[in-house]
């Protein structure tokens, strides 16, 4: 085996590890040290409600995750394998649903559910499924589209049904990415906050909701810290299992840089693709349409004033609301660009390091996932009391917001890329070594080229996450102007039908911005394969 030198792997690791240590571990430990006390621990663990909350949080997350993964397989397959006219729009739409503020999306989903299911656990699970479809479609799709089609084709030739091909050929090969996506969905559902508050029955609490309530409404930071520990404990178990499983199931594959998409052929296939595409459009599109409609609706009828007056400085003579949508979009895009650059740089390095290193790689991998499963309150408050004195007097620096977004986005970049990198056939670098390439050069020529496309997919997700991020942003003190989600919340928190309609108009604009951003990164992605260079894997992949 052609191993990379230790110093090289260490150099790859040091950046991501340092970032994680400074911006996550340090604030986190500082907060725990400040807040944890024997009294808080015994009070929290002694409360029956605590265990009810932990139990409810866990089972609803498991149900949500299983449902999401099962349902999302169909669109993931169709998007990864077939070329159809609305493909990019569909992915953009799913991503928009993923990032829109839960206040507006939750309300839209509630409006579409039958009244009898409103504010039930079913509503919570349904909302989690709709929100997280994009995670599975993107993460699994990033791997699936690299699978050579020849094995599937061979099996089909030998008489296997489409289902047999899926269960016996494709699924075992994409399993690492399925586990990765399931892990992310589980983290999201487990730490769910907005969905629970908007569509759940009143008083429904996940650990995350309870942490927020204890810390901010009751001033019980100690209790919140204990709950954070409990939350991490459960998630830690899940993460250890997931990282081990991803490694176990990943195997070297003759990956193609990208299997060509093809148009569906034959009646059955066309039906399948059309059915899946239409169903996905309905599920993801209906809530978006619902909110666009609400931007035109007033208590007394239809009106376009919300749109025509949007960003007008004076809503009524002398009265301004101080919400400038263009400014808010600018702020959101600025944050998104920085967060994406950071997340891609850190995530890309981290993936290379994780794929190249052994045990320490796994530690880094799990460590980078932790911020996803840690409550936003904890991170925000931790930063507040850690970065409070020179030389790290960074509180309320504008860049803490994109750093916070990047903390949440890095795991997506890693998940999108790692599965692909691990599957790169080691024969390739052995061959390169045989031909006289030193390890680092062999690595650069054989492994790195596979990084770009999944990295672009990760970048799209990172940008989307940053555009829609609300939790972390709202717990960091900010002075850099409002982002879109913050402006939407502020409008919807005030009385007045015009302001309400404008909130929904702004939400519609955020949806459109996201769809455009995702479509653009997707275009970039199409061009991300290195051109004019022998394409590794091609010879082994599909013809």
């Amino acid at each position, binding site marked *: 085996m052609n191993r990379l030198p230790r110093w090289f792997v260490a150099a790859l690791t040091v950046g991501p590890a340092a970032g994680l240590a400074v911006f996550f571990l340090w604030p986190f430990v500082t907060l725990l040290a400040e807040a944890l006390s024997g009294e808080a621990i015994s009070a929290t663990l002694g409360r029956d409600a605590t265990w009810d909350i932990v139990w409810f949080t866990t089972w609803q997350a498991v149900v949500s995750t299983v449902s999401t993964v099962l349902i999302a397989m169909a669109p993931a397959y169709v998007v990864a394998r077939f070329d159809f006219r609305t493909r990019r729009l569909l992915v953009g739409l799913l991503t928009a649903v993923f990032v829109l503020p839960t*206040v507006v999306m939750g309300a839209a989903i509630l409006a579409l559910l039958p009244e009898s299911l409103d504010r039930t656990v079913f509503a919570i699970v349904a909302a989690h499924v709709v929100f997280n479809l994009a995670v599975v479609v993107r993460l699994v799709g990033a791997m699936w589209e690299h699978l050579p089609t020849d094995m599937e084709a061979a099996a089909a030739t030998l008489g296997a049904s489409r289902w047999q091909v899926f269960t016996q050929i494709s699924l075992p090969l994409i399993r690492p990415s399925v586990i990765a996506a399931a892990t992310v969905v589980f983290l999201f559902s487990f730490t769910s906050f907005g969905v629970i508050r908007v569509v759940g029955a009143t008083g429904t609490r996940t650990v995350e909701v309870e942490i927020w309530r204890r810390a901010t409404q009751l001033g019980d*930071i100690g209790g919140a810290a204990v709950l954070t520990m409990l939350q991490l404990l459960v998630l830690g178990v899940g993460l250890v299992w997931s990282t081990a499983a991803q490694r176990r199931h990943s195997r070297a594959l003759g990956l193609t840089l990208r299997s060509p998409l093809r148009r569906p052929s034959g009646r059955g296939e066309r039906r399948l693709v059309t059915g899946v595409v239409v169903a996905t459009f309905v599920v993801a599109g209906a809530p978006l349409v619902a909110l666009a409609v609400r931007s035109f609706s007033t208590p007394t009828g239809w009106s376009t004033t919300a749109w025509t007056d949007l960003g007008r400085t004076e809503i*009524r003579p002398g009265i301004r609301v101080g919400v400038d949508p263009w400014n808010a979009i600018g702020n959101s895009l600025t944050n998104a660009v920085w967060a994406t650059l950071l997340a891609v740089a850190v995530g890309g390095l981290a993936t290379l390091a994780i794929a190249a290193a052994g045990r320490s790689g796994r530690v880094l991998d799990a460590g980078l996932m932790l911020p996803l499963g840690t409550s936003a309150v904890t991170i925000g408050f931790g930063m507040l009391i850690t970065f409070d004195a020179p030389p790290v007097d960074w509180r309320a620096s504008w860049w803490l917001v994109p750093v916070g977004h990047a903390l949440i986005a890095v795991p997506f970049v890693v998940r999108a890329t790692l599965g692909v990198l691990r599957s790169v056939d080691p024969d390739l670098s052995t061959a390169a070594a045989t031909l006289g390439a030193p390890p680092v050069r062999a690595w650069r020529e054989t492994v790195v080229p596979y990084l770009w496309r999944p990295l672009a997919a990760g970048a799209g997700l990172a940008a989307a996450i940053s555009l829609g991020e609300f939790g972390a942003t709202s717990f960091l003190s900010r*002075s850099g102007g*409002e982002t879109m989600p913050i402006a939407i919340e502020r409008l*919807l928190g*005030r009385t007045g039908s015009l302001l309400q309609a404008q909130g929904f108009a702004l939400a519609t604009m955020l949806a459109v911005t996201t769809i455009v951003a995702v479509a653009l990164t997707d275009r970039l992605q199409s061009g991300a394969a290195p051109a004019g260079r022998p394409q590794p894997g091609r010879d082994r992949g599909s013809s």
Partner: protein
Amino acid sequence: MIVTNRLRILATGTVLALVVAACGSDDPTTTEGGGGTVATGEPPAPDATDATDTMSDTGPDTGPDTIGDTTADTSTGDDGPVSGVTLVTYDSFPEADTSLNEALGRFTADTGIDVDILVAGDTGTMLAKAALTAGNPEGDVMWGIDNTFLSRAVEEEIFEPYQASGLENVPSELTDLVPDAAATPVDYGDVCVNYDIGWFDERGLEPPTSFDDLVDPAYAGMLVVQNPATSSPGLAFLLATIDEYGADGWQQYWQALGDNGVEVVESWTQAYYERFTWAGGGPTPMVVSYGTSPPAEVIFADPPRDDAPTGVVESTCFRQVEFAGVLRGTDAPEEARQLVDFLLSAGFQQELPLNLFVYPANSSVDLPQEFVDFAVAPDEPRTLDPEVIDENRAAWIDEWTELVLG
């Protein structure tokens, strides 16, 4: 192929443009606000000057050229010896582009002190952060701690006691809440049951006038309230019932409310915009909201209207008072005190009603006509001692949760 390439270039260009835009906008906040101030560039209004006496004494002269200069500087604020203070506030406070921000611009013009706004989250989050950083605060002045959180703020010693000048214009029921000048009352308002006037008219039904009416079967299933565990108007409404029926009687009342079909949701937005008949097209014609919601319904109506579509059940109103104060440990105590004085001055207070939809604490300020016509602030509002609230909050909420949701 060509098409793809062109799109690629476009996309790359867009990303580059975004990066450039990002680099160029290190300080995107106050440019517009500053511009607005220049446009109004007139000497402070007469009623503003008499309340800002203190500042005129200490500040530089307020000739027109100074105003022009300093306001132009508000956006950068880093050249010259101009000092600055940071105003920490809750998330419904506008960061820029309103007359409230322009008023702060006038303070800068008069004193040479820049004001940066730092949004810390909702009131509870803001207080929790202030408690964590007490003595080494994030800013210099805090705006917006209300009476349900006041005694925790005092106990955590987040404020430096300060007797603001201009307090003589504040009614004693507000100043009595802070006998040692631990904080400065700056505004007030009420949380009250609102009703949909048209809905009741159509059915020839009289709206209720008291808490007892709300449990009358004639009004069954007509009220939506917020969860006091997670919503501040929800908590205020619970406190109002405790004020009415006492610490031992409210449980029975809520039992009756429950029997009469009261609906509980998590947040004000949900109650008002999803469930309320008027604003949300929902099934419930009464909602817990604010005494100032009716004027907001008039001002932000689409199409414009001159009568209020919603009314207020006055006897249900619970008083919320908000406080400002100098944060203990500030490195600009003198400037911070000047800002607190300004926050209480008529020039700033007169902007509160139409920006935050609260009543100014400074009683020398004239109210806008919409407030006079449509807002409700009872002379004898319900209230509870902040200390009593703080001592019992957690227990009451737990008991309520058990009783109503359990």
